[in-house]
């Protein structure tokens, strides 16, 4: 096999798996069979990421670059897809029809994310984005029974369609001025002082990206979509969908001058400040766990935008590290919700989680860990993530942003701790008794869920106590960046 093919192998295998799953569904609808095919495809793609890791970076076709940065995210997204496949198996046990399409859509959306992080051209950017979004429209509406699923999907569809057109128009404006859509050719003219049209084009692209990241003021869809979508899909939106866009943003901003006195830098800085503040404030009084996680993710994206402002290698490594910690904690939180749910009913209100620790101690323990990690408390991955972020912010003298980050991180503790503490409350304390469903899951599905959740717990602890190996990997990624 030639080395070029090897670097792209994870993407090719993921795409092939999607086709294979489609064919399997066509031949015979078997839930278990579909899951097996998906798992085999994802595991072999992951293996190929490891193989490709030893090869040198190389541009792959004019549209994609398969460097270690892209490979790192390919591996990360494949791991997320793996976890969501395992979690989805238990979740969809009680689904009556068409549950196999979940895996097909999941694979396609993952492939979209993988395309985005490898994109060096507006065409692949848009291609990846649409592949991701269109899969998500269907995934969000996957819960047929309750109405909020469809409502959320339509809301997402309309808004995403609108922002896609903004994005396209921005790309067109830039193309009209520079006559190129390849990132390599855009770098030189964009690092010069910008003409109004170019600036307008970039701002329109930022709007599109801001919508996908759910950065304030483009965040309004987030809580509704998180609430309406099935829990594993919400997890996917919170992780891969946002992570891919953020990784892409870092690649594109590396060619821009994002220093604080530059107008684009100002835009990003204000996006960060608003997202942190608004996200945290709106989460404070949120009685619904999925909506709470939605607002929390808005705030987390605000934190990550600080890393974007660092630009270059520092920004890429800080953002990558923080993203991994955020992925682990978010997946774990949604994973617990998934494990407690089936497609018909999901426990939503925090009241329903009251005293969970006395009924499902392991799940409560993991949810606590996830919440503490999102809050950035020690022994969990989030602590190191926040530490790295603050360190880099101070190193770059972004004092105002670090100050806002600190105040916000304190505010956020209020709701994370409230949610965590409810899990251990006495059950007789509140007016309402718990209504978390105690449905029976087949042994195999329960095992799949357990494997995913235990792995997430170990990752959160491992990164919280001994992050050195991951930092070493990210060090390699950063050297290949650009």
């Amino acid at each position, binding site marked *: 096999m030639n080395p070029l093919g090897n670097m792209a192998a994870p993407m090719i295998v993921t795409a092939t798996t999607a086709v294979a799953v489609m064919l399997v569904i066509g031949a015979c609808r078997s839930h278990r069979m579909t899951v097996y095919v998906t798992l085999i495809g994802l595991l072999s793609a992951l293996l190929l990421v490891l193989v490709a890791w030893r090869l040198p970076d190389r541009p792959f076709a004019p549209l994609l670059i398969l460097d270690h940065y892209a490979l790192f995210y390919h591996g990360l997204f494949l791991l997320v897809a793996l976890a969501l496949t395992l979690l989805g198996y238990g979740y969809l046990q009680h689904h009556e029809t068409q549950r196999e399409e979940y895996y097909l859509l999941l694979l396609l959306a993952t492939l979209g994310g993988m395309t985005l992080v490898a994109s060096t051209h507006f065409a692949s950017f848009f291609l990846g984005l649409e592949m991701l979004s269109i899969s998500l429209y269907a995934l969000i509406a996957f819960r047929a029974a309750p109405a909020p699923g469809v409502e959320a999907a339509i809301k997402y569809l309309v808004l995403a369609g609108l922002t896609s057109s903004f994005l396209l128009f921005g790309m067109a404006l830039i193309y009209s001025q520079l006559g190129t859509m390849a990132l390599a050719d855009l770098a030189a003219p964009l690092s010069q002082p910008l003409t109004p049209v170019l600036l307008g084009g970039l701002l329109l692209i930022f709007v599109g990206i801001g919508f996908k990241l759910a950065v304030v003021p483009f965040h309004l869809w987030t809580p509704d979509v998180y609430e309406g979508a099935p829990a594993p899909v919400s997890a996917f939106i919170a992780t891969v969908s946002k992570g891919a866009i953020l990784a892409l943003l870092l690649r594109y901003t590396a060619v821009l001058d994002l220093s604080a006195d530059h107008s684009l830098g100002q835009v990003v800085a204000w996006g960060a400040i608003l997202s942190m503040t608004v996200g945290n404030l709106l989460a404070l009084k949120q009685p619904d766990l999925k909506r709470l996680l939605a607002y929390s993710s808005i705030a987390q994206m605000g934190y990550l935008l600080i890393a974007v402002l660092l630009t270059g290698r520092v920004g890429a490594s800080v953002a990558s590290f923080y993203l991994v910690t955020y992925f682990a904690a978010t997946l774990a939180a949604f994973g617990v919700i998934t494990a407690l749910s089936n497609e018909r009913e999901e426990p939503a209100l925090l009241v329903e989680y009251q005293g969970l620790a006395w009924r499902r101690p392991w799940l409560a323990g993991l949810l606590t860990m996830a919440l503490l990690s999102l809050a950035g408390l020690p022994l969990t991955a989030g*602590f190191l993530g926040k530490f790295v972020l603050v360190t880099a912010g101070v190193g770059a003298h972004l004092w105002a942003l670090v100050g806002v980050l*600190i105040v916000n991180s*304190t505010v956020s*503790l209020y709701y994370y701790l409230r949610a965590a*503490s409810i899990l251990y409350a006495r059950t007789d304390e509140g007016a309402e008794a718990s209504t978390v469903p105690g449905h029976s899951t087949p042994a195999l599905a329960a095992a799949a869920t357990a494997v995913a959740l235990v792995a997430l717990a170990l990752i959160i602890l491992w990164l919280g106590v001994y*992050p*050195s190996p991951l930092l070493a990997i990210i060090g390699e990624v950063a050297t290949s960046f650009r």
Partner: protein
Amino acid sequence: MTLVWLIAIPLVGGILSFALSRFSALAARVLALVAMTAQLSLAITLWPSSTSAADPWLQALQARWIPQLGISFSLTIDGLSLLLILLTGLLGIVSVGISWSQIDERVGLFHLNLLWVLAGVTGVFLAMDLFLFYFFWELMLIPMYFLIDLWGHERRHYAAIKFFLFTQLSGLLMLVAIVALFFTHLQQTGVATFEYQQLLSTPLAPLSGMLMMLGFLVAFAVKLPVVPLHTWLPDAHTQAPTAGSVVLAGLLLKTGGYGLIRFVVPLFPEAARAFSVPALVLAVIGILYGAHMAFAQTDMKRLIAYTSVSHLGFVLLGVFTWNALALQGAVIQMLSHGVSTGALFVLAGILQHHLGTRDMAAMGGLWRVVPRLGAAMMFFSMAALGLPGMGNFIGEFLTLLGTYHLSVSFAVVAAAGLILALVYSLWLLDRVLYGPSRDPLAIPDLRASELAIVAALALAILCLGLAPQAFLNISAQALDALLGPGGAP
């Protein structure tokens, strides 16, 4: 490895206790008690046989941890840390013991949280890498939050979150200061390290030095507490379960004092010197204000909480006086306050457990009903007001003596705090122990186990008061090293 065990024993003990609680609550309690006894015994073995060595460090341990960020797993122990860890072990045993009859639900989780707080506190006293220090600093807060929030009294949610937000915000300011110090050191030497010893001699510009010093100071001032930042303390101490109050007053406040001695002044000598007058003023205000507020309380635990504000003002006074006498006094004051206030919270907790109230108006005449408890309360109130022969007297006396060398006026005003302490302590005794009893009270007196706890604490306070030299010898070497050659006033 001993140092790792000091932290690992409570950590692992907590997990095992939690696991055992599924089978038997008694086993969980016994295991927690065994773990804390083991930790105390291990700490005692570190007591140095001779105190003449030039090197203040009794033991050290350094291992690679996160080399990419210049972070090492570095633990060391000197006399100062040793004394505070002995206090941790002692109060740890007391906390487990006092919870024996008072905590009867979610026993395993309670001991998990309790032992993890103690592990975090131990880590704070041992960590010599600033990142590791911050790690433990944050680690001890989370279980403390759960202790208050899940086992506290009527306003526990409010008290717990207030405690956490105060300490967290100030902790993050310290983190920024740590990182800023790290970068200053990196710029000047090209070495990326969070190691305390290496950061010690970082030259700093006056303004940035002052800002970083304030970042550290605010974190420790919230914990100690220093007066404008103390408002979390009465709520947290009052609402916490008895063991929580003991650990809060006895240990968590001491981490603030320890941080001031270990980090603030040695890392930023110039800035600390420049800030000494405002700090001394705050200390004196704290002493008087805490005492004044103690009068106004009707809630017994709240009263004791405010006396902490007053007593720990002496620690701030001692630290910013920064001479050998005053520092020695501050250390003894921290130890004695930990023991005596811990004991008072134990007694208040027992009373509340039996009476169902902390309101002193509902008490009175208790001496006749529960003479043993009354005697114990009398003893520890006397300790708190600084009766000679008890540890607190030594602490306050040495601190005032040291302050007198620096400034007569500060010493005189601070000494007024002693008079106020006399008044509020006697007033407490008067309302609780003497006078007519409101209702026919039929509460049991101290049981044998409770008596043992109280006796152990009384013994500790007498040791501190009658044979302070043993403790002074241990801390002297560590303090001399911190004071440095230019440390004399």
